[in-house]
Structure formats: C-alpha cells, structure tokens
C-alpha cells in the first residue's frame, strides 16, 4: 500500500532563516506530487505541483520554491523565511491517470512557526 512521509513534524524558525521540508512517497511510481499550505481557520492553498522529476509548477508567487530530485521525493524550500510563511504544510500525491487520478492523499504535515 502507498504511504507518504513528511518531516519534520514541527519546526520553529526565525525570520530570515532558510527552510527545507521533505516529502517522500512509497508504494507507487510516477505520482503527481503537491505542496499545500493551510493557514489557521482556512482551507488548503496549493503552492506547487509536479508531474515528474524536475518538473515543477508554481501556483502562487512567493518566496518559496520546490524541487523534485527523485521520482518519489518532493522538497519545499526557502532561502529567507517571512513571518507570513507560518502555517501547516501538507504534501500530497495522486495517480497520474486512471479512475483514481482525482483523489489526492495527504502526508501528516509539518507545522511551521516563523518567529
């Protein structure tokens, strides 16, 4: 069965420091991968999605970036964090095609607090 991992689970970082969040998926090949942010009391906002190694698309302009160095690895980064980057970051995967392509499955999330 497929599983998705994220780490770290929680992170407290000062403003201006760098960020690296990692997501890995097991039990599937060639998944679509997604990064979302959930601010307190709000829905999930899509930040990045990837359909393959090295293929990243950004949904919103921001000081974050994403990379996909391996098929089942997705990384969210920042060179300098802002206070507004605080939130709950979720990684998700979906099949590329077939009847389950619309379903996205989420990792456990990383709660980031920028101080």
């Amino acid at each position, binding site marked *: 069965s497929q599983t998705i991992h994220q780490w770290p689970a929680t992170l407290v970082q000062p403003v201006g420091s760098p960020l690296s969040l990692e997501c890995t998926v097991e039990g599937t090949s060639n998944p679509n991968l997604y990064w979302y942010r959930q601010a307190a009391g*709000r*829905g*999930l906002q899509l930040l990045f*999605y990837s359909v393959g190694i090295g293929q990243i*698309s950004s949904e919103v302009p921001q000081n974050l970036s994403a990379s996909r160095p391996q098929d089942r690895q997705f990384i969210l980064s920042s060179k300098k964090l802002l206070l507004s980057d605080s939130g709950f970051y979720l990684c998700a995967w979906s099949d590329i095609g077939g009847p389950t392509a*619309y379903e996205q499955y989420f990792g456990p*999330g990383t709660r980031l607090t920028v101080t």
Partner: protein
Amino acid sequence: EDKVVQSPLSLVVHEGDTVTLNCSYEVTNFRSLLWYKQEKKAPTFLFMLTSSGIEKKSGRLSSILDKKELFSILNITATQTGDSAIYLCAVVTFSGGYNKLIFGAGTRLAVHP
C-alpha cells in the same frame, strides 16, 4: 475566479444527532468533488463524487452531488464524538494542463457527549 464555499463554518451537536454539511462551488472545467475529514493532521479521503444524483455511502456518512445547482452535501447520521473534525470539500478542475483541487475553508464539527 473559481471558488468553493462551505457552510456552516462551525457546528456543535450532541451525540446521536444527524448533521448536514454543505458545499457549493463555482468553477470552470469541473471534473469531480471530493470530501475529506481532517482531525489533527492530514486530511483523510472520504468520498469522490463525479455524477449527479448518485449517493455515496460509507457507514453513517453519505454524500450526494447536484451538478445542476452546483452543490454537494455530506450527511452524518447518529453522530459520535469521534466524528469531531474539520470536514473539507474540494472541487477538481482541469486548469493549466493538470487536475487542480480547490478547497473550501471547511466546516468544523464538534460532537459533544
């Protein structure tokens, strides 16, 4: 602009009550509608609805989609304290060459004993 609106934003009920959560949407290139339950961390998948009028059921939870009126409802019967969670509705649209999920803000359900 594509949008998904959920109501109510929060709901407090007692065990045994039946609740109905609402999700309305305005999107281009609708593909499907998904319901998720979010407790403390990751949202967990509940239902995917693609066709109007076909009820999806899982235990005490059921959901239906109306593509003419652009809404879906999620029903929970005989609620239990374990049903306390945020329920998220998301609409799948096809945009920019890929399937994109647009989420509502969620309904926070609290079930008291």
